[in-house]
């Protein structure tokens, strides 16, 4: 079977939802972050798929978008890990289900 746009999109969607599932279920903050990275990857895959397949006046914008997402992902990861370290310094854990100082 020749893979078409649906196939790539399906992989993207599944990857996205896997990432979402991971970020919703993992206890460790770094695990959650991994889920987020997977979601961003899925978005990237989707964008590149569209760039490749969709009839578009300006197909390069999908690629551009991906470049920025990559950048932002890096920045986000850096900040996330820095925050994780900061939390760890205070609490000696980065398990998000134990981060519940703030609650009503």
């Amino acid at each position, binding site marked *: 079977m020749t893979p078409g746009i649906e196939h790539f999109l399906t992989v993207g969607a599944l990857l996205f939802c896997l990432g979402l599932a991971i970020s919703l279920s993992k206890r460790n903050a770094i695990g959650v972050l991994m889920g*987020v990275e997977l979601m961003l990857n899925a978005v990237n895959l989707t964008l590149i798929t569209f760039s490749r397949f969709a009839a578009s006046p300006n197909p390069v914008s999908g690629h551009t978008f991906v470049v920025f997402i990559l950048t932002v992902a890096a*920045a986000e990861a850096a900040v996330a890990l820095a925050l994780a370290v900061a939390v760890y310094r205070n609490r000696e854990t980065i398990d998000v289900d134990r981060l519940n100082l*703030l609650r*009503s």
Partner: protein
Amino acid sequence: MNGIDVLGPQISVLVAAGVVLVADALFPGQRRLLPFLALAGLLTAALWTTSWVGRGDYQTVFDGTIVLDRYAVFFQYVFAGVTATVILASIDWVNREGRRQSEYYALVLTVCAGLMLLAGARDLITIFIALELSSIPQYILAGWGKDAKSSEAGLKYLLLGAVASSLLLYGMALLYGVTGTTILPEIAAAIEAGGESYRALLVVAMTLLIAGFGFKMAVVPFQMWVPDVYQGAPTPVAAFLSVGSKAAAFAVAIRVFFEALGADFLSSDWSMIFAVIAAVSMTLGNLMAIVQSDIKRMLGYSSVAQAGNFLVGLAAISVAGEEFILGASGILLFVAAYAFTNLGAFVAVIAISQRINSDRIADYAGMWKTSPFLALGLAFCLVSLTGIPPTVGFWAKLYVFNAAVRADLVWLVVIGVLNSVVSAYYYLGVVRVMFLGEPGTEQRFRASPSIAVALTATAAGVLLFGILPMPLMSAARDAVEVLAR
């Protein structure tokens, strides 16, 4: 008109951020001047913005990805003002906290630049990057405090924010896939040309966009981070969050939903979604605010409820023409009013909380006796949040409700006004504690000059525009008229 000119305000703010960083390194002894450098950058941005006012009112640059119109101008003023107030309100806190100051101010300015860029962004990529430019420094700022609560707030905010922006991105990707472009008017054109057959996909994309923006707006059900982050983050940062990113989210939402997703078969959907979310946000936000004992949490829930009021306007803009103008200008008016009011409240809270070392509402007892100025300012802002004249909050609510009535959303207005009653209960509860409670200590204290300036400015705005709302209203209306064309 070249790009540099159009982006002058953002550039000057970013330059100020750089200057602050460098100045700190070069002249470590002159730290007390840093905030004023930052303010100078904001002033430059504001002046630059002003320089456009006389000139044309609609310019697109960079192949249509960025637009300069009065809408952007309006928000740039708002963001400059908000940032300036936050900086003024931060001075004491930053001095006390003892951390490096230049970075703090630089990050605040970066956020401001991101917000300003959002106001003019008209392209999904630019919107995304501007949104992140304002968000990522905010995550850092939320975790800026040295205590565990602040770090926790920062991490929570970041993780949820990342999930939300992933959802937003996926929605944008789908939108791009259907239309083949990222530029808003082109998206609209593509949808007009035959988008109805893609309705399912568009609805999914729209839903994801609502989730992404809804997170920033802090509306139900994307609001749950709000109270935790407000409570944990340093109070000046919470103030910034409550006003800045919320306003920006609405600024961009009006553009995206009206300019890109304005097709009839979509607008009827999203306006109903916004209406329902508005009703739920107001109700839940207010209900949950009632029992809060921490003033920052209370303000957090109240900001959820207020976001519901903004959304009333957003629900009313589905039809082009006068309805759109009323609804959108209502949101803008509300943004400005809310900026004055909520910032004023937060400034007072910053000053009081630092002094009494507590955020508990019960500890605000007798504030009227220990610090009449702060108590009066806070009370006045709370009255404005309730929507009682002569405050700007009254006009904002009135205007938005008026727009909703004209959009045939009477049921939403009924819910909205009834929610005002609930909100009066807890806002006035704070006033009651401050004015009637017996203070723990009889010792009077005064606000620092910077706080005094910030509070006076915001409270004066609340009062002045409460009596003469006309300039603000016409500014808001002028701002949205360009979109309606």
